[in-house]
């Protein structure tokens, strides 16, 4: 290989590394910044912070406004993830283990909500919810979130179901199991890790969702994202940095822990 050519190769590789590095910085900077600012005791957010401390976490712990919103978000996310889970598991069995006509369409139907532009979808849902009298209803909002979360259960669950050999179930049935027991004890048991992952994603979808809440929740249902959204629009409250940092840390652990555990188990 000639010298200029080798230099060209090096330049090419270096460019790649610089671009990659820039992306990493652009993605991680906001996170690091938020965590950093959350440990400042300044009265208002400023950079660089003039004082350090955990005052914002203390304020958060003392604030009924934020804790109420947080608790509502948790309940809402649990409810909608559960609804999505139940709807999704039924559909997954129908798609993969029955002779229902058009069952492959069912899978497309389950993920279609992922592709609808949210700003248009919310207007559409607002109209339907007002006709059905569901505006401001906890259960209504939970159902709406469940429809948004459903694609994750379906996508993750379907991929996992395809990986379970049908022989396992058939063998269980020759051993005397009813179809229901073979489904529950073998197939669903084996896709449980994937479904648990889908459940977590469904929870996350509802927990972070701010658009449906804005349109469908009314004044009565102020979830955490809605509270932050409102607060930012009317001048931001420094406590938000503490909330953000906590959520980032908790979700990092929630994502990293299973990965670390499975890696440990595989070794």
């Amino acid at each position, binding site marked *: 290989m000639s010298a200029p050519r080798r230099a060209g190769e090096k330049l090419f590789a270096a460019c790649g590394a610089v671009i990659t590095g820039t992306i990493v910085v652009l993605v991680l900077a906001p996170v690091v910044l938020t965590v950093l600012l959350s440990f400042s005791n300044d009265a208002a957010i400023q950079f660089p912070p003039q004082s350090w401390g955990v005052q914002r976490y203390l304020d958060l712990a003392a604030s009924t406004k934020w804790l109420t919103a947080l608790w509502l978000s948790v309940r809402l996310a649990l409810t909608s993830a559960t609804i999505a889970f139940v709807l999704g598991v039924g559909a997954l069995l129908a798609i993969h283990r029955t002779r229902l006509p058009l069952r492959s369409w069912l899978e497309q139907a389950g993920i279609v909500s992922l592709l609808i532009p949210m700003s248009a979808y919310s207007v559409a849902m607002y109209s339907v919810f007002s006709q059905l009298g569901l505006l401001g209803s906890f259960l209504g909002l939970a159902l709406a979130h469940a429809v948004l979360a459903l694609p994750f259960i379906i996508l993750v669950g379907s991929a996992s179901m395809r990986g379970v*050999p049908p022989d396992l179930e058939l*063998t269980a*049935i*020759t*051993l*005397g199991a*009813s179809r229901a027991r073979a489904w529950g004890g*073998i197939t669903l048991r*084996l896709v449980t890790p994937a479904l648990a992952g889908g459940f977590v994603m469904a929870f996350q979808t509802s927990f972070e969702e701010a658009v449906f809440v804005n349109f469908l929740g009314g004044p009565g249902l102020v979830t955490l994202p809605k509270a932050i959204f409102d607060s930012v629009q009317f001048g931001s409250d420094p406590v938000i940095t503490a909330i953000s940092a906590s959520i980032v840390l908790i979700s990092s652990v929630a994502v990293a822990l299973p990965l670390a555990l499975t890696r440990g188990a595989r070794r």
Partner: protein
Amino acid sequence: MNTIEERPQQASTAGPPTAPPAGRHAVELIGLGKSYGPETAVAGVDLAVEHGELIAILGASGSGKSTLLKMVAGFEGPSRGRILLHGQDVSSLSPADREIGMVVQNYALFPHLSVARNVEYGLRMRKWPKRERAERVAEMLERMRLSALGDRLPRQLSGGQQQRVAIARALAYSPRIMLMDEPLGALDKALKQDLVEEIHRVHREFATTILYVTHDREEAMTLADRVVLMRDGRMAACAPVEELYLRPPTAYAAGFFSGANLVPARVVDRVEGRARVEIGGRTLDTTCPVDPLGSPVTAAVRPVCVVLDPPDDAWALEGEVTDRLFLGDSVQLKLAYSDADTSGVVSCLLPATAPGLPGAVGEKVRFGFTPDTARIVPDDQETR
């Protein structure tokens, strides 16, 4: 002490696992057929299997052997005919009600259950009391030499151990029959030999009736009491192993099962169960199993029966060595021949120490076979 012995259908030691009703076959297939639309996968199979027999269902892929087994297991509903297990018509029962044990390729062990829990699964589904379950699992693990592995998960086992677990699980509740679907299909040759011996031992010790589907004639030969040869959804042959090997009824059976050379032949005349057959210009007297007049026939000759420099009472052909493989104790030659009527290649297996062994490709040789070793069979090669 032995609560298991009190259950008539769960006798656990020697003898057929279920006391067979007198005069009944373990399995009876009556006109069993399966069609998918216009496609016929299995066409009217009749078969009766004795208690404790191991029947190999042998065939190439697409021959209908797997469909046949799936119908017996209950995974496929037959289009025609009936299935009787121990004299009971099970055609309309679900697989769960048929009292069968099944071992499939890759074994389908439940990956999330320990070895002991896998073996116990069928007993739990059949609602055996806890204490009897534990006793039976311990007994099965003992008999399958798995006692030390009861707490392991399937993925921690070797291929051979996995097979033993699959067999233990299938036999734990003493099914009427055991179905094995290509259990050795995905294994390499060395491991295969060990597992074939294991299956042989299980069959002997448990005296279970086994239907064993395979595409490998050596597996079928080693294991089976009788072989059912499937071809295009039909039963091409059904005979005890040695019978089928030494006296195949058709050219297809001779080629597929005995690995015989098929040399075109011509029946000149027929006298009282014997026929005068002409091959390579020489006409000799031989026995003939079917009435061959008017239909094409073939001489089926296994490679070991081909001789060089044939004597006068043997059919003889002129040929040329086209390939020579040294196999250790023996040498395999490929001999190409052609004369006025016909041409072909004959494979010939000779002892490596035989005198006058042709040494090189291209060498001209005279070879042949005697009427005792060649079998004149109807030529069904073309019927597809």
